[in-house]
């Protein structure tokens, strides 16, 4: 293949104008406001079009069926992350920040940071937080109930709770925590194209980026927290002192907005499926299943890209080397080929194996943190709240990667 560019990246060809072979072409824009607000029809079209499609607007390939998304997520050898997991190819365009040592790295670079984070965020290591988080959750629910009337499920529950427990667990200081959500939103918008969502968020983000950078320094992280433990790993030589702040940064990027929207998705599901909430009330141990089912059903992280390392076969269709592939986690999690009554939010199903946290080498390093937060909040909710009722029209906040609620007007009906 010839190339017309003459710079150092000349060996990497620009995106092909047309796909090779007989890959179906779709003219949809998955990052348009309409699709971001309601992605399900587009995802249905993508799945029914075939295992692989070519999105002509962006010159990228896309997959939406569970089997193919699952296979791509686990095949790190063929579908690499180091060229970025957004639409932009880091080998052609410089990323907006130094790449993540986890999300945007391949083995062997990925190995050491991942091992450190996996052990710090293991379910076993988190157990010491369980009782405290449940107490915190009870207070958050009590405070919400004490207000008596209607509330915003996003601001008053889904945000308040993670913002109360997670920054403390990381070891952040008290000031500036309001930067966390805008930073996460920005980072997740930045995986998409340079549309209005990204450019408008870009204007004010400078101070937020600077604040995040400051928090990753050793002296700004309280002893005992995840951040200090990451630095302690660098004292043992398990990662280098240069890597430590970037590993901390990965928690601050990926840890807040994702969880907020996972919790909000679950609350929304409870409000719109009173029968399912009644099951949780009857059997509070279902809190974990309920949250994972909500992560499957709503897929707070909707999409991630990979880049083909070599020509790769996807169920009989070819992705040429160096092309970007958009994996629709949200679509895979609703694929009727994998899930019975895939659109139903159902606490009776086994949501195990959903790809809402990804799968394989890059599978969410913070999944046990998210699950523990959810277990605490929904256990506390089920203790005190008889019903969650929707009292107004919920609104979305579009994001290039996340499926988010802006506002969730609900009423908590206390138990007898």
């Amino acid at each position, binding site marked *: 293949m010839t190339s017309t560019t003459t710079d150092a990246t000349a060996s990497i060809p620009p995106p092909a104008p047309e796909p090779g072979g007989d890959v179906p072409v779709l003219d949809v824009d998955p990052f348009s406001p309409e699709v971001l607000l309601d992605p399900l029809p587009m995802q249905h079209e993508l799945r029914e079009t075939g295992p692989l499609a070519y999105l002509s607007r962006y010159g990228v390939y896309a997959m939406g069926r569970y089997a193919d998304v699952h296979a791509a997520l686990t095949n790190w050898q063929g579908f690499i992350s180091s060229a970025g997991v957004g639409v932009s190819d880091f080998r052609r365009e410089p990323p907006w920040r130094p790449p993540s040592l986890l999300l945007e790295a391949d083995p062997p670079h990925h190995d050491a940071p991942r*091992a450190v984070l996996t052990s710090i965020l293991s*379910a076993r290591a988190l157990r010491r937080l369980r009782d405290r988080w449940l107490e915190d959750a009870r207070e958050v629910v009590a405070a919400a109930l004490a207000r008596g009337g209607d509330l915003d499920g996003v601001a008053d529950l889904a945000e308040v709770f993670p913002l109360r427990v997670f920054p403390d667990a990381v070891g952040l200081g008290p000031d500036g925590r309001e930067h966390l959500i805008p930073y996460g939103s920005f980072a997740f918008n930045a995986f998409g194209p340079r549309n209005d969502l990204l450019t408008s968020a870009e204007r004010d983000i400078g101070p937020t980026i600077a604040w995040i950078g400051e928090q990753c320094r050793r002296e700004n992280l309280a002893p005992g927290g995840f951040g200090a433990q990451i630095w302690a790993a660098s004292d043992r030589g398990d990662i280098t002192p240069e890597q430590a702040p970037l590993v901390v940064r990965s928690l601050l990027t990926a840890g807040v907005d994702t969880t907020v929207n996972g919790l909000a998705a679950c609350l929304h599901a409870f409000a719109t499926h009173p029968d399912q909430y009644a099951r949780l009330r009857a059997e509070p141990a279902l809190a974990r299943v309920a949250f994972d089912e909500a992560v499957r059903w709503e897929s707070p992280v909707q999409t991630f890209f990979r880049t083909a390392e070599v020509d790769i076969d996807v169920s009989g269709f070819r992705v040429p080397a160096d092309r970007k592939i958009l994996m629709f986690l949200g679509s895979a999690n609703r694929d009727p080929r994998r899930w019975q009554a895939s659109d139903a939010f159902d606490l009776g199903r086994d949501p195990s194996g959903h790809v809402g946290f990804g799968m394989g080498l890059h599978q969410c390093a913070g*999944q046990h943190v998210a699950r523990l937060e959810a277990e605490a909040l929904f256990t506390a909710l089920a203790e005190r709240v008889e019903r969650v009722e929707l009292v107004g029209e919920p609104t979305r906040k579009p994001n290039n990667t996340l499926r988010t609620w802006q506002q969730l007007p609900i009423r908590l009906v206390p138990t007898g």
Partner: protein
Amino acid sequence: MSETGRTLVVADKRLVAAGVAAIELRDPDGARLPDWTPGSHIDLVLPDGVVRQYSLCGDRRDAHVYRIAVLREVAGRGGSAQVHDRLVVSDRVGLGGPRNAFRLAPAARYLFVAGGIGITPILPMIDAAERLGAQWQLLYGGRSRASMAFLDDLSRYGDRVVVHPVDEAGLLPLDAHLGEPAPDRKVHVCGPGPLLDAVHARCAGWPAGSLRTERFVAAEVDATNDRAFDVELASSGRTVPVGPGIPVVDALRAAGVSVLTSCRRGLCGTCEVDVLDGVPDHRDSLLDDEERRSGRSMFVCVSRSRTPRLVLDL
């Protein structure tokens, strides 16, 4: 059983040095095998239920095959002899792990020291060091050239590999090569006890983490194979029978008890359950040796029981 990747088939077996057999293992259905990192080992469950640990020494970029190399241990209890004398192509073996207690620590410069069969975990480390663009040197000792595996593979690295057979050159010149510790330099050593003892003595007082070693110590317990056992649920006192080859999580689910799983390969940690009584037979990639010995929790997607009854906190 192959659904969870816990049974492998011997796809190739050949002698690669005097007393050293290299074995290739694949999934019977051709599925991907669990990912691993340099320094990892697997539990190999031999057809008669004997379990031994072997370091993965192949190419991790090929997700469909594991390579191990087994030295015949004359003074042993017979695990390695069984591999040499009885295991043949198309035999089935059980898999635990992979687990890693000997990780490659990030550094700009590496010294690798291998004694005899201790070369196995070092091979993938060398591949990683190459890909990371790090400087490295290997000091490789053994009784004689004929007993030292993988010399051919290593010859392409030229003088970065120092081959040092005892019968030609005496013991490894550790002192000269170990040198002084430096922040950007890490030393990884694997080999027989006396070699490791000498290295530890020579490097006493080095900064934490600058020296990493692995001992191929004999495992203390022999394992169970896939026999049936009972799981008791602590909250209700109910007993759920687990048949041979049936994952615990499936037996639980069939009995109406749902435990969330995700990877089903003992890698992600989602299905961890506390063990209140009984001794689990761990097959996961997550617990370290101490956590395994404590037996306080297990991953019910892959792990089983050594005792006829396990009481789980469910």
